[in-house]
């Protein structure tokens, strides 16, 4: 053992890693964007092999799926794309304050599902019995409360007992899924599936061709509000201090427990809003797959967007474009490959972060005998 260590210390490694924080923002962003472009291109080449389409056809399919016949003034596809962006963005925004606080909220899926369930209960079981405006108020309030409860439970235990929040929030997802399954058991026809046609009340109105006007508008406002909240408000400042160092926060008189619980109330509430938008503004139904893993994608988006709402917005636009586009390319084979491509891109971007935060230096070879 001892001689092994001795031998090793003689050999100097070829390279070593140094931390750096001096990279200009434009250099960092060109690395990230180049990574995305290169990987997307490689994925398109692989798609040529797998599907048999030529490269221009793949690009056209992706473009058409996202933008539709935009030059003819038919914007339906484009609005649908914006709607999917809005939902993922809303979930990412919800997670951002929690992550900034280094609270790993992996429960967006469950929190949003509970919000959606609350909206569904209002629409299906209360709709028609009370005035429409009251129904909308009730939906908003209940969705937010449901999401909040699901988010704040792990936060309370984290604040008082330092319970591991990653695992707690993960488990809450599956409890939420079971509750939705339980709810679906009570459908009168016993089909375990809500037919969107039968829902008559509490649907968000559209605007012209745009069926998803409310969703897009709400999330657009939320993006700006969240940016201001994180950057310019006192609470946003407290969040970043708690995230950097809880001891510093305590030292300067921040009530850490209060900040954790308050931030998770906001996070859960926004997830609830995402669920509400998804159910009342788009799906008009709820099932266990309503959120469809977007809660997890949102975690990655919030991270890739570096907790800045506008960068997150950009990232969500890019990732959703690729995902939707690839779905249309792979409809003949299997659409799961769109997920794989998105995951590969995220893995590569996460990996390329290394070259932004660290630099690799080669060690100059020294002559024998010198130290």
């Amino acid at each position, binding site marked *: 053992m001892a001689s092994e260590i001795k031998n090793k210390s003689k050999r100097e490694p070829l390279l070593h890693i140094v931390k750096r924080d001096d990279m200009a923002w434009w250099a960092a962003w060109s690395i990230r964007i180049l990574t995305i472009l290169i990987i997307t291109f490689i994925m398109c080449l692989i798609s040529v092999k797998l599907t048999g389409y030529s490269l221009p056809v793949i690009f056209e399919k992706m473009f058409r799926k996202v933008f539709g016949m935009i030059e003819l003034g038919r914007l339906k596809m484009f609005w649908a794309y914006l709607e999917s962006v809005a939902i993922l963005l809303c979930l990412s925004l919800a997670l951002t304050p929690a992550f900034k606080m280094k609270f790993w909220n992996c429960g967006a899926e469950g929190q949003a599902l509970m919000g959606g369930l609350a909206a569904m209960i209002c629409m299906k079981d209360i709709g028609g019995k009370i005035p429409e405006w009251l129904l909308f108020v009730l939906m908003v309030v209940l969705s937010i409360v449901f999401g909040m409860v699901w988010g704040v439970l792990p936060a309370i235990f984290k604040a008082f007992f330092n319970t591991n929040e990653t695992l707690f929030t993960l488990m809450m997802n599956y409890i939420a899924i079971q509750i939705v399954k339980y709810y679906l058991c009570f459908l009168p026809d016993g089909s375990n599936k809500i037919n969107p046609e039968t829902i008559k009340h509490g649907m968000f109105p559209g605007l012209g061709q745009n069926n998803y006007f409310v969703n897009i508008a709400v999330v657009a406002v939320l993006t700006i509000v969240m940016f201001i909240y994180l950057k310019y408000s006192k609470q946003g400042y407290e969040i970043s201090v708690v995230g950097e160092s809880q001891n510093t926060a305590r030292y300067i008189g921040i009530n850490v427990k209060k900040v954790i619980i308050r931030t998770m109330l906001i996070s859960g509430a926004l997830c609830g809003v995402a669920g509400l938008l998804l159910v009342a503004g788009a799906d008009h139904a709820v099932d266990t797959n309503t959120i469809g893993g977007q809660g997890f994608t949102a975690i990655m988006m919030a991270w890739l967007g570096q907790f800045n709402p506008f960068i997150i917005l950009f990232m969500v636009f890019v990732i959703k474009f690729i995902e939707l586009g690839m779905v249309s390319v792979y409809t003949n*084979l299997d659409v799961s490959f769109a997920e794989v491509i998105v995951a590969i891109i995220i893995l590569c971007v996460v990996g390329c972060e290394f070259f932004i935060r660290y630099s690799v230096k080669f060690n100059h070879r020294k002559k024998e005998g010198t130290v």
Partner: protein
Amino acid sequence: MLAKVLSLVTRAIPLAIPLLYGSTGEIVTEKSGHLNLGIPGIMYIGAISGVAGAFLYEQSCGNNIENMNAVLAILIPLLACIAGSVLIGLLYSFLTVTLKANQNVTGLAITTFGVGVGNFFGGTLIKLVDTEVTSISLANTSHFYKYSFPFVDKLGWFGDLFLSYDFLTYVAIIIAIITGIILNRTRVGLNLRSVGENPATADAAGINVIKYRYVATCIGAGIAGLGGLQYIMAYADGSWSNDAFGDRGWMAIALVIFALWKPSMAILGSFLFGALCNANNYFTGYGVQAQELFKMLPYIVTIVVLIITSMRKKREHQPPESLGINYFREER
């Protein structure tokens, strides 16, 4: 009464074994300080690699069980499964150990990747190979995997209770026991635990932190991948259907907490989880709806354990100190 207990156990164990594989693998990884949230994806990858291996072998034998060699029929999927999942483990450790990427984000991306790959190849393997079968059904390979002791029938309840399972079930328990011994009784295990508790100290003591983290993550991934294969071959009778594996990977991660990072506890815990998953079959008096509520039990139990351990703050029940934190030597 005896028959009831018997059916409880014999139905719980097949559900328990994939979880046991997953959580043993995750314990090994977490002991090195890496919270691998990619385990659900890795179990999918393990399953689909094994399925692909078995599928190609069955094709080469003309789908005829008489042409198949029992040893090859078991070894090919087994090795394919281990190779596939170790490869993903390697990818995860390259990203988190060498490139120091965030563990949660990397893990979740790996899970998305793994589930996607599983479903993609599960759906397209047939189209790519261009045969006339309509869905992947590996009944022949499954037959070899489910081969159990020939004298079980003669042993009555004893045989049913202890000897009626496929060989991967016993392998899972043996792996868990061996893992426990290595972690707690050997120098390698001590080193591994020290890497997970305080990598800087371990590094100063001359332990190669990077090597330990790589190897632990890859071995953990390999073990977890077997869980996917066991599920397909023994529980699902060799038929692949998309998303059938479900959330078992997350349950395996939950089980790690439930077991307090002890492989021997994971064995008991997995049996309990298996029984809880089946609980709806025993409490039949509450109607169909209540079954969905009973299915919550494993998750609620995990949360309760999580809360109790964090409240009691007992030292030996805590997660590894540096769990989820990447190690960079030059950082203070």
